[in-house]
């Protein structure tokens, strides 16, 4: 055992003395994985607030039938911006930011394998987001003036062709994704190289924390998934500027081809987003249950099989395009198969809690709600996988409800859990538990109030992406409840922002290991020094700090 003693104090020598400009310069030119990780997360949270405000306007517009709060053009732009931002400029940066911050610490490394590539990737991803939003200032649209893209986040052809999308708003959408995609690929390569080459002594692949394992799989999935998206964006660019006809149906192109390209990216992307959520839960649930994760090898195998099966399910987004029965059956069955490894994960988390001594601190509260809400998301996922049932549910509010149970009820909840869990490590200060509980309960109420009724709106026949609906179709009640939930969600996010702002300046010191954790990041100081560990750590099991804290009963005897 050669764990670094948790003593390093002067992490950033004289950091407080540097004038503001110098500090800014230091952050802009940094290649430190921790600073880049924090900037990733910070930019993601900024975009999260923006996209959340967009969603608030959408819900206000839909609160009553026949509302004219925003004109249809604006509604369509807001809905496109909301979806694109949440997936590409909130979800991806926050998750890649966490991976950036945590993977080197968890494997006992000094930094990522390619620090400069890391900085390049972050800035590409940020510039992608800024490019998307500069469409508000620069793009000339169909109706004159500013024009954000209005083709929906999956931009189905041929709505994106020059004939139907004049002006430049679609080009901003296209280039923003192209640019940020390059950033994602860079970070994915970096994570793979880091995981394969920089693990500390003793850390075999089978001794990596689950968080590292899952993010390794996610990085591999990004390489496979983002490439077809990038290719499709280039084809769309060729269509729009050089007169190619890939998706130009008026010249014999194919509308369905775009859908295949997009979902070959889009469905693995769902797992790129959701697997890191599993990774957070797989670290937080054991620590707060005070038990080792149940079935580690099975959890790894389940992750890898979700990734592989996830590559063969994309056309379940296309059950209504008129595929042959054989194709529909194939994609229905492959989609249902995902339920098997996913179910295994849920069972293993519950088995980890079973027989433990569960501490319901804020991170664990978020992970517990995640288990309930992810269960709902998984079960509605099985309904959607049954292709004939999907013929009714596809493109309805049921789908909107389903994927918000995945991306908000599951992913966002684990992200908040992760923020409460690792914030003390990154800042050296604890977030307030009381505010944390307010944040949690308001979000649970608000989230379910907003998205549970949307299942029923879908079953009532409400398609997604309509800017208004007429009275008397049975949509009103569900939409009213749904919009009411926004108030609670906004209050929850308010609590969170206040909590973070307060803790940054006045939070109580966290110490190195506030949660009594087991992975290597808790063995160094909070915040960790630029070099992470004073001496390179050496591990003998998956829980090096457990071994250190229980020398009489170390893990390596059982693994």
């Amino acid at each position, binding site marked *: 055992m050669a764990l670094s003693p948790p003593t390093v104090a002067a992490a950033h020598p004289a950091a407080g003395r540097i004038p503001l400009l110098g500090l800014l310069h230091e952050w802009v030119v940094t290649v430190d994985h921790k600073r880049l990780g924090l900037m990733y997360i910070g930019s993601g949270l900024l975009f999260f607030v923006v996209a959340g405000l967009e969603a608030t306007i959408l819900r206000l517009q839909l609160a009553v039938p*026949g*509302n*004219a*709060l925003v004109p*249809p*053009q604006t509604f369509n732009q807001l809905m496109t911006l909301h979806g694109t931002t949440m997936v590409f400029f909130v979800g991806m940066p926050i998750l890649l930011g966490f991976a950036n911050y945590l993977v080197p610490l968890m494997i006992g490394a000094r930094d990522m394998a390619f620090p400069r590539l890391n900085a390049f990737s972050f800035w590409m991803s940020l510039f992608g987001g800024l490019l998307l939003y500069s469409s508000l200032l620069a793009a000339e649209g169909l109706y004159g003036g500013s024009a954000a893209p209005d083709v929906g986040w999956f931009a*189905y052809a*041929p*709505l994106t062709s020059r*004939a*139907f999308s004049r002006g430049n708003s679609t080009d901003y959408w296209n280039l923003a994704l192209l640019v940020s995609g390059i950033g994602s690929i860079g970070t994915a390569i970096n994570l793979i190289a880091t995981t394969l080459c920089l693990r500390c002594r003793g850390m075999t692949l089978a001794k990596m924390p689950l968080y590292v394992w899952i993010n390794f799989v996610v990085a591999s999935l990004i390489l496979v998934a983002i490439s077809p998206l990038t290719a499709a964006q280039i084809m769309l660019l060729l269509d729009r500027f050089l007169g190619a006809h890939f998706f130009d*149906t008026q010249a014999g192109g194919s*509308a369905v081809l775009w859908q295949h390209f997009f979902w070959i990216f889009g469905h693995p992307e769902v797992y790129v987003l959701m697997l890191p959520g599993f990774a957070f839960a797989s670290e937080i649930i054991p620590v707060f249950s*005070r*038990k*080792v994760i149940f079935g*580690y090898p099975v959890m790894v195998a389940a992750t890898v099989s979700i990734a592989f099966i996830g590559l063969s399910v994309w056309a379940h987004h296309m059950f*209504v*395009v*008129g595929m042959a*029965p054989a194709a529909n*059956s194939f994609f*229905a*069955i492959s989609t*249902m198969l995902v339920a*098997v490894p996913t*179910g295994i994960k*849920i069972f*293993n988390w*519950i088995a980890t*809690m*079973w*027989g*433990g*001594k*569960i*501490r319901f601190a804020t991170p664990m509260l978020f992970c517990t709600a995640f*288990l309930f809400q992810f269960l*709902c998301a998984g*079960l509605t996922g*099985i309904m959607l996988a049954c*292709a*004939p049932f*999907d*013929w*009714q549910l596809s*493109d309805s509010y049921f789908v909107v409800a389903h994927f918000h149970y995945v991306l908000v009820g599951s992913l966002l909840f684990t992200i908040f859990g992760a923020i409460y869990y690792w914030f003390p490590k990154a800042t050296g200060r604890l977030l307030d538990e009381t505010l944390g509980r307010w944040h949690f309960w308001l979000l649970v109420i608000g989230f379910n109030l907003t998205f549970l009724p949307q299942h029923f709106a*879908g*079953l*009532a*026949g409400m*398609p997604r992406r*309509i*800017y*208004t609906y*007429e*009275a*008397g*179709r049975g949509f009103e009640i569900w939409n009213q409840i749904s919009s009411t939930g926004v108030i609670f969600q906004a209050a929850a996010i308010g609590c969170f922002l206040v909590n973070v702002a307060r803790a940054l300046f006045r939070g109580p010191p966290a110490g190195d290991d506030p949660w009594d954790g087991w992975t290597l990041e808790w063995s160094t100081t909070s915040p960790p020094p630029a070099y992470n560990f004073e001496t390179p750590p050496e591990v003998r099991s998956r829980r090096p700090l457990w071994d250190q804290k229980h020398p009489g009963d170390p*893990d390596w005897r059982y693994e």
Partner: protein
Amino acid sequence: MRAARVLAGSHFVVSAAAAARDAAPALPVFDPVSAPADAIVGLATLVLAITAGIFVVVVVVLVTSIVRFRRRPGDDGSEPPQVYGSDQIELAWTVLPILVVFVLSLVTARTIYAVQGAAEPPGALEVTVVGHQWWWEIRYPALGITTANELHVPVSEGAEPTATFLDLESADVAHSFWVPRLAGKTDLLPNRRNRMWIAPREPGLYVGQCAEFCGTQHAHMLLRVVVHPRADFDRWVAAQREPASVDPTGAAGRRVFETTACINCHSVRGTVATGRFGPDLTHLASRDTIAAGAAAMDRASLRAWIEDPDRVKPGALMPAMKLEPARVDALVDYLMTLR
């Protein structure tokens, strides 16, 4: 909010809304009146039963573990026994879901083939539906009828059920045909011909709308399916096959219509108006709504629509013709004669 509650579809009319309300049960997806929708509900019921079972089991176990194994006040701080896993348990909860998936796969595949593979019976009604930004063109090739936004079909019952088979096409972007009580949805894609069928067993009005985002007015691409008893349907067909009315009250308006750009986009059978870009108006006044359900078919709405389509349906592709009020009146008179 109340201030913002300006009705965009202020021309949307009580009668149409009331009719729609009668036609819309609480959850239409679970209130099918047609064979494909029946098959879906059959499958959905099984899936719901299975998922409800899973939900109950998992929630009970989860709640039990939360309640039983939460740390009690006065805990001694010792660590609980560490359990690293169990091959038998893992095997059990791998095999059980596989069995469930196996059962669901078979039923799903069978339903897919039953709906998609259904052969077209002789005597079925053939209809071509073409999606446009933002309205539905509905053609009955064998009957020589073209109409818009309202699909009229005979009820499919008795000794000789008459199913309706739809050829789905698009003139511009992707749309999707969805009337939840009749069938699941199928996309209308340019450069591609999709097919679906319905066999409604109860007469009535069934409402639906475009389900694939198709641009600015995706929300106002409403669809009405009117299922008639056989005799009524035959009467409807006969009426629609009549040439356009030559009621003298419309003579002045007809001159306006035929001497402005109206005829570039609209057809009125038997006249010089042969445009194909907009809906066929031969029997416009026989329909319940205009502008794909954005407004009711009456004088006031027609007038508002002709004066400024963008106010009735913002973003609509029909241009405002800037006619003098007298000519608009004449035009409305004429259109009201097209029964």
